[in-house]
């Protein structure tokens, strides 16, 4: 189906939304229609053709979403399953102060972190998201264990949307895991609103099937004194763009984005990160690492923007790319836009093969070159793995091990 008024109404009806939802979606549809695809001359789209990520038709899809995705590991506070055209499946006994419920298209908070004018993918998702979940954490509430949201689909287009609203001084961890999607398109948007002094951990994990394409947008708005720690992992899909960032809207807010990608033959990844400092004395840090094998490719653009009124800010950005094959390629463009002088800011990027001195040191102890490389790569990924919540590491380790195993076999 094309993305038109009828499709939007059908999705809203399927999700049992009221007139407010339909109206808001139709407004987003207008924005979508008025937005051309982004120009390739923009850094953000320099390495990826937006048309290649744009689905040619939309659901609602039959609910045969590519098999059961299996149980969530660890001890989540709640396990949420998002599938196209369905209300979220929610399991777990939530502590007082936390609610997890279907997200309604009319929710007035939608668009606060990711407005539909952000771009055509964001506008498309706002108009036509076909599964959504709202996580609310009341002020002062501390949630043990992650709220684990898994978005699963078969082929076709799937437009999941997540809204997390964390009250003043509350603490929560949200895992967002993308699976399935073979041959299809995943156009996802996640908005996180971190109230004053809130502490939020967010763990987006992209392990879509081979052949999947996707555009995933994540934005956090951090109020005064709020801290957000994002740990993102990109493993799957054939062509996936991930656009992550935070607005440090209140004084003393902080955001840390640590993540990695592990690219195998034929995969293309495009990552964008942005930290926008709008208030004084904020702190932000970005550390993105890529490991590329075969003919995989990674493009990274990162922006730190510090507004005039955001004095006393510390902001860091680093992108390191480890190329394990001669055919792999990484492009990296870190950018700074700093509008006042009272800041501490550094950024850096490297693209290199495995350090031969490290390899020789390990090999001189009896490790063969493949084992040595695996150990070095494992160490390279450790900063992100070291801080993901319980269950995530257990999920990722076998996936990573299998990837590195394949790497050795390919020699």
């Amino acid at each position, binding site marked *: 189906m094309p993305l038109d008024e009828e499709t939007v109404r059908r999705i809203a009806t399927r999700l049992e939304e009221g007139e407010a939802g339909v109206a808001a979606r139709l407004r987003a549809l207008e924005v979508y229609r008025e937005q051309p695809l982004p120009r390739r001359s923009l850094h953000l789209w320099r390495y990826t053709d937006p048309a290649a990520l744009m689905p040619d038709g939309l659901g609602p899809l039959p609910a045969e979403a590519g098999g059961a995705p299996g149980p969530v590991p660890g001890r989540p506070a709640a396990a949420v399953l998002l599938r196209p055209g369905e209300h979220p499946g929610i399991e777990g006994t939530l502590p007082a102060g936390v609610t997890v419920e279907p997200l309604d298209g009319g929710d007035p908070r939608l668009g606060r972190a990711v407005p539909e004018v952000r771009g055509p993918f964001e506008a498309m998702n706002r108009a036509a998201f076909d599964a959504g979940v709202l996580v609310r954490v009341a002020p002062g509430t501390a949630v043990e264990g992650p709220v684990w949201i898994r978005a699963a689909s078969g082929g076709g287009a799937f437009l999941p949307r997540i809204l997390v609203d964390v009250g003043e001084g509350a603490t929560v961890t949200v895992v967002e895991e993308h699976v399935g999607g073979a041959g299809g398109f995943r156009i996802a948007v996640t908005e996180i609103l971190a109230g004053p002094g809130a502490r939020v951990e967010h763990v987006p994990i992209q392990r879509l099937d081979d052949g999947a394409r996707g555009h995933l947008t994540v934005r956090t708005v951090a109020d005064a004194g709020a801290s957000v720690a994002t740990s993102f992992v990109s493993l799957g899909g054939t062509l996936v763009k991930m656009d992550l960032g935070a607005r440090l809207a209140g004084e003393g807010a902080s955001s840390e984005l640590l993540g990695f990608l592990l690219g195998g033959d034929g995969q293309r990844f495009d990552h964008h990160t942005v930290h926008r400092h709008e208030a004084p004395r904020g702190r932000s840090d970005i550390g993105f690492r890529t490991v590329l094998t075969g003919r995989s490719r990674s493009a990274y653009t990162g922006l730190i923007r510090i507004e005039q009124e955001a004095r006393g800010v510390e902001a860091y950005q680093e992108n390191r790319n480890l190329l394990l094959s001669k055919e792999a390629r990484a492009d990296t463009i870190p950018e700074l836009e700093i509008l006042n002088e009272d800041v501490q800011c550094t950024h850096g990027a490297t693209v290199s093969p495995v350090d031969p*001195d490290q390899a*020789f*040191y390990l090999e001189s102890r009896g*490790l*063969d070159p493949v*084992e*040595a490389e695996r150990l*070095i790569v494992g160490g390279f990924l*450790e900063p992100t793995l070291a801080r993901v919540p319980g269950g995530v590491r257990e999920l990722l380790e076998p996936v990573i091990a299998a990837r590195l195993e394949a790497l050795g076999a390919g020699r």
Partner: protein
Amino acid sequence: MTDRADVVFSCRDLHVFVEDREIVRGVDLEVRAGEKHAIMGPNGSGKSTLAAALMGHPAYRVEGVIELGGERVDGLPAHERARRGMFLGFQYPVAVPGVSVASFLRAAVSARRGEEVPIREFRKMLAEAFETLSIPKEFMGRSLNDGFSGGEKKRLEILQMLLLRPRFALLDEIDSGLDIDALKVVSEGIERAAGPEMGLLLVTHYQRILEYVRPDVVHVFMGGRIVRSGGPELALELEERGYDWLQPDAGPVEAAS
């Protein structure tokens, strides 16, 4: 002909090239089980190149014969030499961020043995070795050589030698950057690891460590060659007279032992 059965390491007519430059220009060495040899030489004489080339560093082109326990190893990559019992203690041990000391050591010990070392046995070995080298237990969980002081790195090199039980160990300037207390600890570790079965080749610039680890044979290495070999008294002579009285082009002198 002497009995060669107890020769743990030898090289004959060894030449080492970096690109087209010949750094090591014809070296013969023979180390027997239980023997300690020292190679002394001024800076820039090619000592470290010799040590790395013997271990199989891929950046060097090597001509000549290298044998470990009577078996030729010169065609083998570094990890195969290590598995057969050769060990190189690095002058500058390399940091590998994100790889814990314990997981690295377990992988190394397993590689040397040819089978996974059981975790309980490994923990016991590790605890003893850390005790011997006076390294705090917290280091087991730290990233390999990452942010370690010079002395900590050198202790960890000797700890690896203890755990890996080589037949022949090359220690490249293991004494550099050590204060006197660290030097004692490292020397005791070397003595403990070097039993009657192992051959040892200490590469050093200074005589100081040889007061703690007494060599049987001392070789003077200059201009890519061994220009003189003798007993421990040669080290003292070098300490007094420096290297200048030895002519690098005078050709090798027969070993005294």
